[in-house]
């Protein structure tokens, strides 16, 4: 456990260090912070004085150190566009993105597990063929296109679903605005969640199915049959617990992809989350905001990977052994 924590901490440190260097380089090279702050009208001398005063003429390492120190204290600079601390701007959008991801994750878990298990247990059934047919079509449609088609069918043609935004929101825990507590908010969540899950869901169905079929062929499952255990215990305990191991590993790898998909989904639905904000920041060359986004995403990446590893360790008693396979 201690070794695990140390390894995790080292990994977290390395990831955050790399991201901070990238971020700092962007901040240092993208645009001129002075111009963004004071505009064009200032004379060259005043400019130089200001540069000196802001420490922009200091050596690279000194500047990076200052940046890192501020970053650790949560100060990532001020957004050029919003004129507010960048981190604050990002964190305000975090709940929207997290709720969207939560919705999609619910869909993925509660559909992929039963459908994957069903199609592994009944490989010849008609329903399995339908599931597999849908899933190959599913992985062939890019997320943004699913989103667009959902908007076109349900909002434009049928007019039954809202096409953008989060709808009516409720404040909880101070600043957190949730769409989960109003009917309107939930309604707004439906299409974006489906869109966000649209590639992951078939991917996981296929993964669970193929892993489960492999496990069902294994000797220990045959032995369980030979012991006269009930079929449900064999499917849902003996086989499924082993199926989960590779699925969890792949799930960990997919977290980054999920973040990328939130950018796409939020763009189509104009969902006021971090991804949408990030693209706006890119278009406005709002460097501090880009930096803040990278760092928040890096932190999410580290945290979720740790959680995934912990879950993996809970399911698999041979974690040390597994580390060899998964790296």
């Amino acid at each position, binding site marked *: 456990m201690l070794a695990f924590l140390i390894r995790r901490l080292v990994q977290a440190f390395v990831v955050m260090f790399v991201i901070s260097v990238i971020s700092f380089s962007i901040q240092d090279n993208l645009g001129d912070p002075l111009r963004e702050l004071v505009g064009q009208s200032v004379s060259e001398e005043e400019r130089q004085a200001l540069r000196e005063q802001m420490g922009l003429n200091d050596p690279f390492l000194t500047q990076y150190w200052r940046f890192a120190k501020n970053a650790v204290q949560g100060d990532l600079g001020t957004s050029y566009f919003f004129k507010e601390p960048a981190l604050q701007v990002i964190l305000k959008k975090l709940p929207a993105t997290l709720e969207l991801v939560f919705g999609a994750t619910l869909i993925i878990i509660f559909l992929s597990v039963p459908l994957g298990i069903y199609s592994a247990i009944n490989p010849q059934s008609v329903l399995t063929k339908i599931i597999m047919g849908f899933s190959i079509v599913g992985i062939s449609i890019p997320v943004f296109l699913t989103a667009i088609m959902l908007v076109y069918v349900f909002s434009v043609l049928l007019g039954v679903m809202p096409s953008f935004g989060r709808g009516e929101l409720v404040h909880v825990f101070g600043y957190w605005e949730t769409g989960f507590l109003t009917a309107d908010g939930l309604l707004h969540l439906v299409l974006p969640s489906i869109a966000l899950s649209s590639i992951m869901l078939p991917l996981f169905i296929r993964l669970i199915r193929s892993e489960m079929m492999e496990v069902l062929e294994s000797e220990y499952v045959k*032995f369980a049959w030979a*012991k006269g255990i009930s079929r449900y215990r064999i499917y849902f305990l003996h086989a499924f617990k082993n199926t989960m191991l590779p699925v969890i590993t792949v799930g960990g790898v997919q977290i980054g992809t999920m973040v990328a998909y939130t950018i796409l989904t939020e763009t189509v639905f104009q969902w006021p989350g971090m991804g949408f904000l990030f693209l706006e920041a890119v278009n406005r060359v709002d460097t501090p905001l880009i930096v803040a986004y990278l760092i928040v995403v890096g932190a999410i990446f580290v945290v979720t990977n740790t959680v995934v590893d912990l879950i993996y360790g809970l399911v698999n008693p041979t974690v040390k052994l597994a580390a060899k396979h998964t790296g």
Partner: protein
Amino acid sequence: MALLEIHDLEVKFALRSGPVTALRDISFSLDRGQRLGIVGESGAGKSVAAFSILNLISRPGYISKGKILFDGNDLAQLNPSQLRNVRGNRISMIFQDPMMTLNPVLTVGAQMVESLQAHTRISRQEARKIALEKLRLVHIPSPEKRLDQYPHELSGGMKQRIIIAIALLLNPDIIIADEPTTALDVTIQAEIMDLLLELCEDRNLGLILITHDLGVVSQVTERTIVMYAGRIIEMGPTKEIINDAQHPYTQGLINALPQQGIPGRRLNQIPGSMPPLQQLPNGCAFHPRCAYAKAACKEQIPAFTQSGGCQVACHMVAELVNQAGKSPALENSPSTGQDS
């Protein structure tokens, strides 16, 4: 009537290219306290035979003909829940590779308790007590500790002992052991075999031992079945088969044993190899490799002939017995068989 009687069992595999017969005309019986060996090369159908007794052949295999009478019920006709009552309860199995047989994510205790709870209504505590008792029976050091360990924390020999303990949990009538020692170290092989023999004798268990090792068969079993290409070719008392084999194939197997060879010389091999099941030759499946093959062997599947205590499926038995069967020279005439 014997406890387990198998009549004309036939198993097929439904492959894409059409059904393939993996086992045919299998008939034998076994009572409590009897020990039966099934020997043959890999691919001869030994394991399929073992698994088909409990109707455990995996897709695409299926029992296409025959009866498996256990205590008067035909196991081939039972519904899944009736079959479940027999599996692990009245007939247990021991698998080939202990490394693969235990579920890696469940503790030894969990895998023992679930077995007991699947067949009897007892509490977890009581089940653990029985499990502990069986672990002692198979001479596992510090058994209390083992219950909460995972399979990967145990050695191969220890795992096989645990698997034997699991097989004994519900005091079955018959144990089917499918090559229980092949995956183990040589030194441990003997220990496990001795344990199995001791348990069978003490507890009056019926044992079906599947192996390719004639030495093991001669130590442990009373009767032996020799299989070739999905069919029984010879069966009878183990002693007779080992000392005075009738079928040319069995003779070949025995001659190939290292003990039978002359030091410094090559071992006596049976020429050629077993044909794949999709392309069995007509007549006796062994005839292309047989030094004595005659025209009849290429056309007709031989029926069983009684010879001494043994039943032999060979057209040439009578002649061979007349020759007073002294060390048939299998190795000098491979060419006769190769051409068909």
